[in-house]
């Protein structure tokens, strides 16, 4: 058997493993969502776990934990996500899946007015061990209503936390941390990352929510990546390295709290920054980072902070348009070159 530290696991399997291990450890955890198992109510006909989740991140869990802890739901996001929040307030630990982030509008009130505000408006009189899983990202040809990222909407809301794992290792660690937290945490899975493999320890571990990490050291410019954009930044850094430009890459990992200090430290070293964000640009996480780090590291900046973002448009369907929509390594590298005045 391979060494733990060397074991390769996909992002999808890392999520599945985090759920399984935490549910084993803690009998209070309940999972809710649409088709997270599938064939609901038909075990007696020999059908169970028909889907294992729309992207198979929850497969095999119902076999191990049963219908009461792995609950398929009707298409009633406001009710079942609200119920997950209520159950958390009543002493359970709940994980609810919103199939796509684009659907957040149908349950937005529950997140905005209950999950985010209950503790504050109740003067501390409640714990909310509630995690919401959802998925983001364009690139699968699913057009305007199944491709957005929109984590900036959640980051804007005081009381919520949000994590954006960029590979299998961070997916397991952040999801585990989310499930152990008594604050509401939203975990944004990126659809294009499910197949990506990385080294993932077998034992459970937590990554601290609110901490960024440096995934590549460099001295000329800081690239900040969010979710899959971290992979894009690494690709761009490789391309730039070939030209003698040494880029540092910071993987944001949390969209709230945002680890401004980590980023600012990097910028104080490199004196330049490009933030890469697949979300729409206006009032985005990238804009927020540019504003805050732009203020706090102002004296260290040799060039304006730049952003590579999606355009301020919905996501188009046709492949050529969709490819133009998503920030890629070419756009990132070009922006760095422009910033360096090359």
């Amino acid at each position, binding site marked *: 058997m391979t060494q733990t530290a060397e074991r390769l696991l996909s992002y999808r399997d890392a999520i599945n493993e985090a759920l399984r291990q935490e549910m084993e450890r803690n009998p209070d955890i309940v999972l809710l969502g649409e088709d997270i198992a599938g064939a609901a109510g038909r075990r007696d006909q020999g059908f169970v776990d028909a889907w294992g989740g729309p992207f198979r991140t929850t497969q095999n869990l119902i076999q191990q934990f049963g219908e009461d802890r792995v609950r398929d739901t*009707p298409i009633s996001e406001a*009710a079942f996500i609200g119920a997950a929040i209520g159950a958390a*307030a*009543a002493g359970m630990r709940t994980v609810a899946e919103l199939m796509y982030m684009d659907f957040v509008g149908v349950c937005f009130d529950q997140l905005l007015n*209950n999950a985010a505000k209950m503790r504050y408006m109740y003067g501390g009189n409640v714990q909310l061990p509630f995690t919401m899983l959802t998925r983001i990202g364009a690139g699968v040809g699913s057009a305007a209503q199944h491709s957005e990222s929109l984590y900036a909407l959640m980051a804007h809301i005081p009381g919520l936390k949000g994590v954006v794992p960029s590979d299998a290792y961070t997916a397991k660690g952040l999801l585990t941390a989310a499930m152990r937290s008594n604050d509401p945490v939203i975990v944004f899975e990126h659809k294009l990352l499910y197949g990506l493999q990385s080294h993932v320890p077998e034992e459970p571990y937590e990554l601290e929510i609110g901490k960024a990490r440096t995934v590549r050291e460099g001295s000329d410019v800081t690239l900040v990546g969010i979710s899959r954009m971290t992979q894009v930044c690494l690709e761009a850094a490789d391309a730039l390295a070939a030209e003698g430009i040494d880029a540092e890459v910071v993987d944001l990992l949390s969209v709230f709290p945002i680890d401004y200090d980590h980023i600012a430290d990097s910028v104080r070293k490199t004196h330049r920054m490009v933030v890469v964000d697949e979300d729409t640009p206006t009032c985005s996480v990238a804009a927020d980072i540019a504003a805050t780090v732009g203020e706090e590291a102002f004296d260290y900046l040799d060039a304006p902070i730049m952003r590579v973002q999606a355009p301020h448009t919905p996501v188009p369907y046709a492949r050529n348009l969709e490819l133009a929509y998503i920030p890629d390594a070419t756009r990132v590298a070009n922006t760095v070159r422009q910033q360096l005045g090359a």
Partner: protein
Amino acid sequence: MEITQEALRKMFATMVTIRNFELRAFTEVGQRSLRGALHLSVGQEAVPTGVCAHLTDADYLASTHRGHGHCIAKGVDVRGMMAEILQRATGTNKGKGGSMHIADMTKGMLGANGVVGSSVPLAVGAAMAARQRGSDQVAVAFFGDGAINQGVVHESMNLAAIWKLPVIFVCENNQYAESTPVEYATPIPDLAERARGYNIPGVVVDGMDVFAVYDAAGAAIGRARAGLGPTLLECKTYRYYGHAAFDNPKNYRTTEEEDAWKARDVIAGFRERAVAEGLLDAAELDALEAEAAQLIEDSVRFADESPEPDLSELLTDVYLDTPTNALARTAHL
């Protein structure tokens, strides 16, 4: 359903406490020129009282913007409630929530809630938690005749029905949502009719009669505890005052209508019936009223003697572990 004398006393005390509390809070808020909406449930006291008579602290309740009655009936500390409304650090919620957000998890009170319909799924979740841990706890969701047209209320009833959760959906049909009459907003005479769409019992209850509420709620709660699933109770009742302080209900309803409902006032009616049927005597009832008046008096004094919240509270209770200065990074407080 049988009611013990003890329960009768408790119900009467609850009703007079609710009424006194609200009228006094209204006066205090006005005299102090505090802002913020205060929604009085005066006239509707029978509903939370009759329902909560069957509950213990272990049971759950999700409430609305018009929640004082629910809180008091569920046993939330009245002094803390008054202090909350009067913006004191000793309030149930440190003065950070106010009238519309009173909550106390130790009493199973999941909170008053200012968004119409929004708290209903919280009760469904609490009921799911109860089932999960194998207890016989139940959860009650109170909501209004206006709220029944909110999508989340519909979704919640369906969810509770398919999972047979121990939830009692109590629709307090007080005939109005702000200035909008129920007969305009819904095309059916009895809102309880909607229960059929979820294959759960739907019961029309006289919400001006605490005995009727007590009976109907007892049956529904019994069903829920026995694992038979949710019930929808429509309690027909009336709010005597405006939607909130600024609202003059004379602009949308007749005095005759008001008088007809007030003629069936639950507190007067209870007194009459209790005495007539020899359930409780007048002196006992007087004593209970005096006690309630004293409790309210105490609660105002308690609030007056309490400090306002410390300014540092602005930044607490958002997250458990995030340093508060991180929350004010760009605020320049």
